[in-house]
């Protein structure tokens, strides 16, 4: 039973270590060190994109880290009435009870709701919306379900969730679709022989460009398709844990319990140089002065930049690895 409360002595030990010169943390990291992050994409074969992420697991048996599974499933949705065209995004975070054995089911639901709201509000924002989620204008579109499952929590859950979400969305492939139109059969009227009837001529005065497509078909296999438009826009988050005037990254559970407030900053990088702030949240009870906050946001920018750069490199590696693996398997079959 891992309880999240810690004693006053532990708290002051951790705080004194963070404020010492040089700063010391429980596992010997410096203030701005991250634990190693393991990442794998394409872990759920039935999804359109998936990723598994672990922060700080033991390199030998993988125990004792924050473990997250993320998967994207696309679903066809009929657009009713004046609903938004071009698809929707719905995020959902579920926490496994084994990851939070000290929480009651009610508290667990609250936590799930909190995490879901942060993620959903950030990722479903119109500025991040991919343009290729529509199928037939005003009739059909894709509903992108992003589900994240927390199987273990060893701290720094927000950063991990956003990283996993970004990896899964990066991996997502939207199936190609082709619209299908129904036209009234011409054979019926032409069967009547030489009767001279005007038929099926479109008026030259009709300038309306009405889409007649009513349905669609999938030209490819299900697992093929094109990547989500604008996938480099998906944001990255960094949590700055604040103790007095210093901040540190990637807190463990005990460290989280011993700092009064945390600042979550989410950045999106459409171009590599100018990030846009997608979301800011101050978690905890402490107050923060505006100049200090400005400084922290500026610092956060450099962290998310480094994070996005290395995550993108890793995702491209993953892509390469999977392609190679698929080729090998194909070669073996012959």
């Amino acid at each position, binding site marked *: 039973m891992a*309880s999240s409360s810690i*004693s006053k002595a532990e708290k002051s030990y951790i705080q004194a*270590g963070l404020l010492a010169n*040089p700063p*010391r943390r*429980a*596992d*010997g990291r410096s203030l701005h*060190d991250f634990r190693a992050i*393991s990442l794998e994409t394409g872990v759920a074969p039935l999804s359109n994109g998936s990723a598994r992420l672990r922060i700080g697991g033991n390199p030998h048996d993988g125990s004792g880290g924050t473990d997250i599974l993320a998967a994207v499933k696309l679903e066809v949705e009929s657009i009713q009435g004046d609903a938004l065209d071009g698809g929707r995004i719905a995020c959902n975070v579920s926490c496994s009870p084994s990851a939070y054995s000290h929480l009651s089911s009610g508290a667990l639901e609250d936590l799930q709701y909190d995490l879901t709201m942060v993620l959903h509000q950030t990722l479903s924002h119109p500025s991040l919306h991919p343009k290729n989620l529509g199928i037939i204008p005003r009739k059909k579109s894709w509903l992108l379900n992003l589900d994240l499952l927390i199987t273990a929590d060893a701290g720094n859950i927000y950063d991990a969730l956003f990283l996993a979400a970004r990896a899964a969305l990066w991996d997502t492939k939207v199936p190609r679709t082709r619209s299908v139109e129904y036209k009234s059969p011409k054979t019926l009227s032409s069967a009547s022989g030489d009767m001279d009837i005007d038929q099926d001529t479109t008026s030259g005065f009709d300038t309306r460009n009405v889409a007649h497509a009513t349905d669609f078909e999938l030209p490819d296999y299900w697992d093929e398709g094109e990547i989500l438009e604008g996938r480099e826009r998906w944001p990255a988050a960094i949590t700055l844990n604040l103790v007095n005037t210093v901040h540190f990254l990637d807190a463990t559970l005990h460290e989280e319990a011993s700092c009064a407030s945390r600042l979550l900053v989410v950045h999106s990088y459409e171009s590599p140089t100018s990030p846009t702030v997608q979301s800011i949240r101050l978690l905890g009870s402490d107050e923060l002065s505006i100049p200090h906050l400005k400084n922290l946001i500026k610092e956060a920018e450099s962290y998310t930049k480094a994070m996005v750069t290395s995550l993108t490199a890793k995702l491209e590696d993953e892509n390469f690895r999977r392609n190679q693996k698929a080729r090998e398997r194909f070669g073996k079959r012959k």
Partner: protein
Amino acid sequence: MFEFTSFRQHADNQFSQNVPEDIDMNEDDEDFLETGGLKLTWPGESLTSAQDYMRGHGTYVDNEEVIASVCGLVERVNKLITVRAVRTRYNPEVGDLVVGRITEVQPRRWKVDGNSRQDAVLMLSSVNLPGGVQRRKLESDELQMRSFFEEGDLLVAEVQAFFGDGTMSLHTRSLSYGKLRNGQLVTVPPILVRRLKSHFISLPCGVDLILGLNGYIWVSKHVKENEREGEEAFDAEAVYSNQNDDIDDSTRMAISRVTNLITILASHSIPLTDTILLDAYDWSLEYEGDVKDLLQGDAGDALVATILAKG
């Protein structure tokens, strides 16, 4: 700053490598029914007929068959079949030294998380009260229980007895037991802490260890024998204090180092003893790299290889 790695790919033959060769994985034979036979089982495996044998811990009966409900070793005593699980919570025994954390303050007792199936109980009557070791508890003590232990506090205690429902009752009526400070906690599977002559270990690097048999290990700054509080007279201020001493940089480093070493050894399922910890500490001093690097990459594997070679 951000290091992305891949998940370690498990070789297909890894599992069979770790299993001793004399364990027969064949489902059909019932060798374990012979004395001394070893058999690994997993949840849902049918062990034997329920008509001939009785079900014990870790098994259940379905369709006239005894079926394992946990993964572990099958044991048989006469007609009783039990499965001893590979990974379990701590099974307390009277006299065990445990490290626990207070979860609740109740009338005349504390609830303590001891990594066991149920929370342990620490009665007000089984702690040392200020002003004399042998003193009856008063009503005023009941009212200020939080001044002794409050929620979240860590303590070291001994298992005193069991209640009817199997809950363990703890006591701290010794000067070496009580509240913990000046350090940090590390958790390992309880099975890796053997019963030793002493569970209070002082490493020469200025670090004290308390190996709780429940898998909670307290790593703290070394306190000299003669400076230990309450040696002559019991000093409640010092014993129930939440204040840490000043801890210098090298001690902090040593505490982190020992913590990381314990994590590595635990992940390789190596039982913790003072000699192994000392060997590991010596190895880590020679290891080029920082304390944090111990938890990265292959450092742990190299350490374990050295330890096992010394074996």
